[in-house]
């Protein structure tokens, strides 16, 4: 992110795209966004679980 301006992310906004369209659309920008979304998934499939540190018990 530039420190001086707003910046659009890679993430295409498909919140209002009908699911019926979303499954079949072959738009290159959409396919690129699908690949981008897949890249956000950790390779193991298991996200790290954030937990309060073990030294925090009260």
């Amino acid at each position: 992110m530039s420190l001086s301006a707003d910046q659009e992310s890679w993430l295409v906004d498909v919140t209002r795209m009908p699911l019926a369209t979303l499954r079949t659309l072959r738009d290159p920008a959409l396919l690129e966004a699908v690949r981008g979304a897949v890249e956000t998934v950790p390779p193991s499939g298991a996200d790290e679980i954030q937990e309060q540190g073990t030294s925090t018990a009260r």
Partner: protein
Amino acid sequence: MPGDALPRHSLSRAAFREFCAGAADPATVIALIDAEYSRRRLLLRALADDDAAVGRRGVFGDPRPAWDVLATAESRAPDVVRQVILYPPVGVWLHRAVVAAIAGRDVTFADLNRMAAAAAIRSDVPCDLALPVQHGAVVLPTVGSLRLPGSFPAGFARLRHGTAGTVINALDGRLAVTIDPYRVAAGFRPSPIHTTTAAGVELSVWIDDTDPYREFDEARPPHESSSIELLEWRKLLDEAWDTLVHRHPRWAREIGAGVSVVTPAVHNRTSSGFSSAGAIGAIALPAGQSVLELAETLVHEFQHSKLNAVARLVDLVEDDTGGRFYAPWRPDPRPLSGMLHGIYAFVSVAEFWLAQADQVPPSPNGALLLAHRRRQVAWALESMAGSTGLTEAGDELVAAVRHRLRVCLSDPIPAEVTEVAERMVLDHYANWRLRNIRPDAEGIEALTHRWRRGMTAESPRPGLFQLRPRCSTGRSTREGLLRARLSGSGRRTTGTMATAFGADQAYADDDYDTALAGYLRADHDAGDAVVGAGLCLRGIGRQDVAHALLGRPEVVAALVARLGGGADPVAVGTWLAPVVAAGRVGAP
């Protein structure tokens, strides 16, 4: 729809700055959730792509029937479909399914069917779908769960929803259960939802005790809370929410906008709260917390959710592979992204306790919690100093945390309390080094050689991380005793110096000479002898030797072991002190 016209999510400059500064405006939180909604829909597309679906077999091998139901439900009730897709445990399944697909394994769409059935029921769309039976239950996210007779490790049932109502057929059609999604009956229980309002600010959450992915890891059996347990959760949430809204209104507003699920954790109990990047908006909580502890945990865990969401829109870390850093709240070395999570969450916790400081009567242990958290964050920032893996935005986040920490540090806390916090972090750091850093073998040999010839020590060579599986260290005995002493609940024990506990008790009582003698007994754990001795020497005022023992405990312990009975930790620490004292207590 032409590709160039596809809109994109963004985080405004002002919103990012606000995020760095602490609590976010509810509108910002909703924008982050919107982005997560797009991400999940894109992941669904990745899984249900026609090409990817070809050749899949089995009852749950074809995503198209469920997708069609979801699409129809969306045309009728888009908000319902949004809630179902955004339901936090759905994200856990999505991540696992995507990884399975990438690895070329067959993807089961059983969970997609659960989502579609839930959406169909809530939007009154006819459907006929197979549903997974897991551990004897059919679980429909945001709707409820049906407990079937017997205990099924796996299998499937069939749900039909239409003008005749909602019927689940199981046992090859021998069992048919008509459910009312809003009533407890015939083994069905609607998803418990709790809404609480204070001063006009609302929190509405599902209390999820049945979804397989509610604890963010492998699929778990349901663990339905009893009606009494649910009442207790509701009461606790009411009271914690009241505290948040009245004492921490900005945190309350962002939590109200962003937290949608609270999970009573039954499988993971080693911590006071959990969250996961895959399940943004969910917090898992073991039972037994006080109102204040729950309020603190909600603040803490939601910071992780927020940061996880922001990190998908804004690159904060350029290179997350190059460094491993000391995090004073974890037993293991952390990458930069983990450090950002820690400092961002714990500075918020410090602010929570800062805002509690003027409470009358004061919160039990509140001063210690503030002193401890702010000291931990300060140390973590020191640990990260000099790292080059952050982006400009990441640097800005760290700078904001540093600024927030300065405010927390400005609060006067009694010296006795800050000293206890210091003793706790020093103890943790030394144990962290013992656990995670393997001394350089040649360096130890060289030091052994010099010791035996009566030479002066040379500066220890840097060690290597010995990365170990995630382990839980629990609270040290010393830390527990110090906390008890400060809270006035400490009790003298009859332990003798023949036990580790006896040395720890003497240390917690500031009886350093007695404690030191206990730690140096031959039968004491070798690593703990080094750390215990270092802490005692610090108390006695022998700072240089203490610095060697607490700053390089792994080197001292290795040397003591290599020298056999020829040296004890104090002697080795004294020998090393001139070359270690000048060094910085930090990374290996």
